C-alpha cells in the first residue's frame, strides 16, 4: 500500500516537474494548458493522498481517478480520470502490485480511455503511447522478464509511440483542427503518458534494488 502511494507520488513528481514542457508541447498544436492541467490535478492528488487512508490499491487508484476528474478538466481530466477509475476496479481488494495486476490495470485504463474519448490508436493521442506500452509489457512478461524489465520495455514502447505521434495527423482532440499542420509535433498527452510510465519504471527499479 505504502508502495503504491509512493508510486503515485513518483508520477505526481514527474508531471509537476514537467509542467512547462507539457504546456509548451500543447501550445504548439493545442491550447497551451496540458501541463498546467495535469500539474493542478497531481498537486491535488498529493494533497488528497496525504490526508486519506485507502484500504487497498483499488482505493488509492479510485482516489487518484476521482481527484483527476474533479481537478484537471479539459480532455485529459476525464480521460486520465477514467483510466485510473477503471484501473481501480481491477485492483479492488488487492494490496500488492505484481506484473499481472499491472497488466490488468493497463488494459482496463486503455478501455476506459477508449470508451470515454472514442479514439483509436493512430489518432495522435495518449493512446499512441499507452497501447504500445501495454503490448510491450505483455510481451516482456510472456517472455518471463522481470517486472522491472517489463516496465522498461513498456516505457521504451511509449517513447517510440511519442516519436510516432510526430509523424501523424491528429484526428482527435484539439490538435485535429490543425490537420496537416499537426505533423512534426509530438502529442502532449502521449508525452504525459510516457512520463508517467517512465517514472513508474524508475520507481520499480529503485524498489527492486532496495529489496
Amino acid at each position, binding site marked *: 500500500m505504502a508502495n503504491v502511494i509512493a508510486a503515485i507520488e513518483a508520477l505526481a513528481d514527474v508531471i509537476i516537474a514537467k509542467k512547462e514542457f507539457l*504546456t509548451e508541447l500543447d*501550445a504548439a*498544436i*493545442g*491550447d*497551451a*494548458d496540458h501541463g*498546467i*492541467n495535469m500539474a*493542478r490535478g497531481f498537486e491535488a492528488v498529493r494533497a488528497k493522498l496525504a490526508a486519506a487512508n485507502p484500504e487497498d490499491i483499488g482505493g488509492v487508484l479510485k482516489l487518484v481517478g476521482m481527484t483527476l*476528474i*474533479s*481537478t*484537471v*478538466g*479539459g*480532455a*485529459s*481530466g*476525464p*480521460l486520465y480520470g477514467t483510466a485510473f477509475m477503471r484501473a481501480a476496479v481491477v485492483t479492488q481488494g488487492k494490496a500488492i502490485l505484481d506484473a499481472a495486476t499491472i497488466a490488468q490495470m493497463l488494459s482496463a485504463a486503455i478501455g476506459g480511455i477508449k470508451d*470515454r*474519448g472514442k479514439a483509436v490508436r493512430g489518432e495522435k493521442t495518449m493512446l499512441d503511447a499507452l497501447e504500445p506500452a501495454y503490448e510491450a509489457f505483455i510481451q516482456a512478461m510472456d517472455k518471463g522478464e522481470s517486472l522491472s524489465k517489463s516496465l522498461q520495455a513498456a516505457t521504451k514502447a511509449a517513447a517510440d509511440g511519442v516519436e510516432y505521434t510526430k509523424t501523424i495527423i491528429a*484526428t*482527435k*482532440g*484539439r490538435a*485535429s*483542427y*490543425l*490537420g496537416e*499542420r499537426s505533423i512534426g509535433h509530438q502529442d502532449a498527452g502521449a508525452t504525459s503518458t510516457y512520463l508517467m510510465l517512465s517514472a513508474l519504471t524508475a520507481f520499480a527499479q529503485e524498489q527492486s534494488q532496495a529489496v
Partner: protein
Amino acid sequence: MKKVINNAEQVVEEMLQGIVLAHPQYVKRVEGFNVLVRATSPVQGKVALVSGGGSGHEPSHGGYVGRGMLDGAVAGAVFTSPTPDQVYEAVKAVDGGKGVLLVIKNYTGDVMNFEMATEMAEADGIQVAKVVVNDDVAVENSTWTTGRRGIAGTVFVHKIAGAKAEQGADLAAVQKTAEKVIANLRSMGMALSPCTVPAAGKPSFTLAENEVEIGMGIHGEPGTHREAIRTADETAEHLLSKILSDMTLAAGNEVAVMINGLGGTPLMELYIVNRKVAALLAEKNIKTAKTYVGNYMTSLEMAGFSITVLKLDSELKELLLAPADTPAFVQF
C-alpha cells in the same frame, strides 16, 4: 506577461467574486464551486439552461446568466473545460423541475466533462438534455475529426434557446430550438495577436508584425493558416465567403449577424468590419434583422475578431428579438 492580476492561480476565483460583487441583482455563486446561477435560481417550472467552458472568454458565459438567457454558467480554469462535478453542481442548482439543457461548445474536453456531469445528474433523477455547438467553419467537418469547434455563435444559442425556455416550452422543445439554431449557425474568426494564459506566463504563439492567423480558435489554438495581413474589407470578405459557402441562403432570407471582438480589438475596427459585412449581405439581397457588434466571446486580450451569421426563420427571429436581461446582454 503584463496583466492586472494578483496571482495567476487565482484569476478564476477572483474574477467570479468580482462578478458576483458587481452584479448581485443578476447572479449568485454556488458556494464552493465555480458556478454562477441566476439570483433567482432555481426558477420553478421553467426549463433551465446551463453553459460553460474554460474561462478567458468573458463575458461568456457568466455574463449571460439572467432572464431570457442562461440559468447557470460553469467556469473552468482558463481555456480548460470545467470538471464534471462543477457542471453537476450547476445542474442541481438551476433545475426547476422541468429539466436542464446543457449548451456545450464542441471541444473533446467540454463534451466529455459535460457528459460525465449528465450521468451524475441523471442518477439523481434530473432530466438533462444537451446540444453541442459547432459553428466554426474554419475547421473542416469530417467523420475523421472531432468536428467543428464551437465559438462566438454559441451566444445566439444562449439567447434563442433561453427565450424559448422563458416562454415555458418543455425540455424537448427547447432542445429542438437550440438544435435549429446550431444547424443555421456559421462563424469564422482571425487573430492579429496571441494571448497569454496567466498560468502559462507567455503567449501561446507568436505572429510576425505583418502576419495574421486565419481560422483562429478561441483558446489560442492555431487556426488553419497564416498570411500577411490584408485590409479589413478583404479579410471580412474572405471570412464571410467561407461562412456563406457553407450555408444555403437565398435572396430575401433573413439573418442575424455578430461581429465579435476577441478581447484586444477596438470597437472601431469591429464596426469597420461590419460595414463591409453589411454591404456584402445587402448585395446578395439578404436581410439583416439584427446586428451585434462587440466583445461577446473573447480570448483574453487577443486581437482579432470573428463573424457569425445565423439564418433566421420566424420562430428564431422572434426569440432572438425577445427581451433579455443579463450582465452582458440586455435587450428590450
